[in-house]
């Protein structure tokens, strides 16, 4: 569905169901340069099982208008604004990669609004390789190729997509090329590189938190994810073997099962 935040049009997938304000809200926040489509194997399930879902395209990404936001802090405030814009008082947040930085910061800033936090491939900081950052800011498609290489584990490189017939790396590349690389990936990478408040923000979080990590994640290795999770009181950790950073697609069923148990327990549908 489309709605406005700060006078800019926002697109968010509702998981294939009409948006229903009477159901608890889950907001899914994508990673650097990507779109709402990365969440398709989680969002449809929740949308058909008692929740209202918004898998947002961040400003300037996917089908959303406006320009990409330049800092993680701005993105965090924007997610809070999304909750206001759809006239909710609270929501459950799910983030992937950069989306983890955004949702951690948003949860720390809005303790009254955020009821649960789910992090996939998260870390307290995501410092960028300077060469990769330069490639993205110079609009070089090689930045996408490198990201897709590093972001995928064995399932991505060999194959075995949970949806028959889909090929991970090429699908991910297309998502990252939906808009101009320097205006999405370039801006996002710079925002990640600049963000230094992740560990301090984590210490403030008091809501139930889940971290899903993957043993073959080169972008946000398990030890970095654990470092973040250990700063959050009562945080749960689930580690997936033989899987890369794109666990929400590479091991979509496993991720959905863990997420389903966590959210339905801590933020049950009506």
């Amino acid at each position, binding site marked *: 569905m489309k709605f406005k935040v700060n006078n800019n049009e926002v697109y968010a997938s509702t998981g294939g169901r009409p948006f229903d304000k009477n159901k608890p809200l889950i907001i899914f926040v994508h990673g650097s340069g990507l779109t709402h489509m990365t969440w398709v194997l989680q969002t449809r399930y929740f949308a058909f099982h008692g929740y209202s879902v918004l898998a947002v395209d961040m400003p300037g990404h996917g089908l959303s208008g406006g320009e990409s936001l330049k800092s993680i802090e701005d993105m965090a405030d924007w997610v809070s604004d999304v909750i206001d814009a759809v006239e909710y008082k609270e929501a459950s947040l799910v983030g992937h990669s950069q989306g983890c930085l955004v949702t951690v910061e948003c949860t720390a800033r809005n303790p009254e609004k955020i009821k649960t936090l789910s992090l996939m491939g998260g870390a307290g900081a995501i410092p960028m390789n300077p060469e990769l950052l330069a490639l993205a800011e110079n609009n070089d498609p090689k930045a996408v190729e490198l990201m897709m290489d590093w972001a995928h584990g064995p399932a991505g490189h060999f194959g075995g997509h*949970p949806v028959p017939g889909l090929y991970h790396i090429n699908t991910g590349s297309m998502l990252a090329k939906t808009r101009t690389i320097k205006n999405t990936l370039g801006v996002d990478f710079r925002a990640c590189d600049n963000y230094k408040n992740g560990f301090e923000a984590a210490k403030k979080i008091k809501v139930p938190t889940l971290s899903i990590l993957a043993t073959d994640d080169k972008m946000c290795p398990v030890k970095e994810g654990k470092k973040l999770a250990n700063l959050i009181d009562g945080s749960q950790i689930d580690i997936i073997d033989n899987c890369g950073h794109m666990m929400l697609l590479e091991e979509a069923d496993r991720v959905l099962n863990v997420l389903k148990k966590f959210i339905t327990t801590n933020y049950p549908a009506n």
Partner: protein
Amino acid sequence: MSDKKGMDPKTYKFDTLSLHAGYQPHKNAGSRQVPIYQTTSYLFDDVDHAAALFNLERGGHIYSRISNPTVAVLEERVASLEGGTAALATSSGMSAIFLAVMTLCEAGDHLVVSSQLYGGTVNLFRLTLPKFGIKTTFVKPRDTEGFKKAIQKNTKGIFGELVGNPGNEIMNMPEIANIAHEAGIPLMVDATYQTPYLCKPIEHGADIVIHSLTKWMAGHGSSMAGIVVEGGKFDWMQNDKFPTMTQPYEGYHGLSFAEEFGPTAFTMKARAEGMRDFGPCLSPQNAWNVLQGIETLSVRMKKHCENAEKMVEYLLGHESVAWVSHPSVPDHPDHDLANKLLPNGKGSMIAFGIKGGKEAGEAFINNVKLASHLANVGDTRTLVIHPASATHSQMDEATLKFAGLSHDMIRLSVGIEDIDDIKNDFENGFRAARKPRLVSNQ
């Protein structure tokens, strides 16, 4: 993300993907070879799991008409080789074309189609699709501007064989892709003759790539199969031409394929709707057979092309041959375009005219022994046929002429036998062709 070990992507390359893409042994009991999942259906964990699979909330297999694990390996492998986001395998190349068209079009729609096609494909567009309310304007493959002029308000796509069967005329794919995209419609290319080893049409602007896998991809003349590969670049939401892609679909509780699946939307719709309703599924055994062929694709294609160029040279110098059409020939009208689009080889399909016309052609074909006279191409073995009396025999005289066929034309699919043996076999055929009456009286 601070890994500094090299700044070149380490994603697998073509030959490695030919052997490995789409499959992980540790998820299949350690079986090094892809298992043949000879089953119709798959257990659900519980009622909720079943409902989620049927509603596309989860990925997975339900029923082998829709998908099958062995077939899925083939689909991912071909998608990876083509640079596509997704693929859908079918029971034959013709069913792949039909499924692609029916995923794209509705009654009242129109397509612009290259006139130089396999005869069965011509009949599909000319005679069968009109029964479904889908009309076609044919344009000669070299008439690039003609493709633009033929586009109407209700045109939903452009279709063609990259190198036309059997005349070897080449579509200017990059320019025709631009024409399609300026009109807000996709370009669909049948690249059976090339395989992704010779050309990846998606890199040149194609949006949907179709193969008869029966041919060079499988390569051994054993199994029928087809595939539709999606490039993932086409924006279905850019205009209102594709409501079945962009609007809520009643068949899946209001799902919009384009919004939910983006770069894989076409494949998702083709499978969820097309395989569900038409059901031209590929058998797991045939998928496995095709996978065996693909493992050696680059090795075979090199040899096919090497032999083809030697046969071109031989035919060009032969007294019984009136003309030779192959993109490797410098005076072929599309030679420069072929060098651009087909840098790894110009393929192993040769069309040539035999002196003496139809009677000589029949005598030639009746007297070759090593070359097989049959209605197929892309076998490891050398194949010959006289198109006007076989593959394209259902066309009337005018359609034959428009498709660039003549009665003296022999279609040759060069195999990977020893080249001297193929030439010696052809000498026997040509010798007989020079005495057609004597041969026919034998």
